[in-house]
């Protein structure tokens, strides 16, 4: 699905070689947050690696034009560490933005799916609030639902457990595990210890 060969970047100083396989959970642990940020930018074709190749769904991203790359980005869902929400949109509008923009389904269906996911994540507030009114955990939840709504082939979680307390980590891990049962998920974590939260012992 995604193959990384000899990848080095501005911050990624240790060569990366691995393959993300379909319907498996993959864990990547970086030493610094900058490395994760750079990795996500390289994966999405927003930055060129110093050396090495990235094969995204069989395509070497070095050989893709910007439009082709944007088309491939539709197949990747990224749940950013702080949610990655757009501040001048309401929380609800943030949820729907990529799915409606890419027309992954008709708007009513997207809205219905978003509502049921909010219920699944036990979100009680009115979703028409501003992003600033959401807690860190709620921002992460909105970021996860937004990424999931585009029906991605692979779902990336950037530091999903950073910035939240112990109880929240366990609660969120349970929800994420459920979401990833039938999907390809990649977790970028700050320490190996966090793999336990996901019930993983063989993450690579």
């Amino acid at each position: 699905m995604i193959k990384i060969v000899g990848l080095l970047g501005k911050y990624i100083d240790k060569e990366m070689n691995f393959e993300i396989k379909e319907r498996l959970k993959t864990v990547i642990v970086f030493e610094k947050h900058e490395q994760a940020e750079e990795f996500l930018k390289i994966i999405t074709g927003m930055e060129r690696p110093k050396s090495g190749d990235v094969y995204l769904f069989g395509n070497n991203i070095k050989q893709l034009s910007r439009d082709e790359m944007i088309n491939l980005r539709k197949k990747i869902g990224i749940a950013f560490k702080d949610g990655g929400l757009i501040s001048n949109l309401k929380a609800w509008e943030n949820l729907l933005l990529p799915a409606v923009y890419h027309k992954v389904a008709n708007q009513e269906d997207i809205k219905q799916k978003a509502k049921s996911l909010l219920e699944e994540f036990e979100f009680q507030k009115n979703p028409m609030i501003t992003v600033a009114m959401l807690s860190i955990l709620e921002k992460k939840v909105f970021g996860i639902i937004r990424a999931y709504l585009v029906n991605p082939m692979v779902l990336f979680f950037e530091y999903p457990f950073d910035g939240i307390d112990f109880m929240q980590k366990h609660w969120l891990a349970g929800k994420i595990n459920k979401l990833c049962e039938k999907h390809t998920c990649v977790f970028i974590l700050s320490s190996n210890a966090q793999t336990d939260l996901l019930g993983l012992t063989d993450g690579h």
Partner: protein
Amino acid sequence: MSPTKTVLLRQLYFSGIESLPAVVVSGFLIGFIIVFQTIAITKVQISSTIGKILVWLIFKEIGPFFTGLIVLVRSGSAISSELATMKLNREIDYLEAMGIKPEEYLISPRIYALILSTVTLSLYFQFSALLAGFLVVFINSASFSDYTSAIFSQFVFKDIAVSLIKSGIFGFCISLICIWHGLSVKKSPTQIPQRTTKALSHSLFALFAIDALINFAVSLLE
């Protein structure tokens, strides 16, 4: 409705509709002052002369320029600081990572909205100024018919076209300069006010320069 259309409509609402009171009041006051001062200085009570001066000043110069100024101060600064904040918060990166083209979602709607708003607001400004002229003529008991016929005789399609084109170009330049400055911030939040100030001063300079250029080009054509 597509998210891009939503951004366009929101920008139109903010730049066009919410600016309307400021534009109408300014247009009315400026029209009132111009006519009042013209009568006071020239001691002319002839409505036709007042009408000519008003149409010439408002349509050819003050209307598009003043509207551009209001749009710049109100919307230009908002666009610049909004985009700068988005850039610093990585929000532009988030959009790109989601496969949303920033030029399609953020930039184009703002440019179109500012062009449309500036052209439309310029018409409102000019209309308000002409109405103020009517009021002054009424206060001074001058001839209404002379004033009206002077205004209508001065209306030349070319002048109106130049006035609207000028407004459109002002809107385009303001949006482009403010967007560019907004997206030029690098890492520090202190750059937001700096970039906004630069956006305003550069746009203001552009308004003067474009106004002079268009006037020069039109005079060559004449």
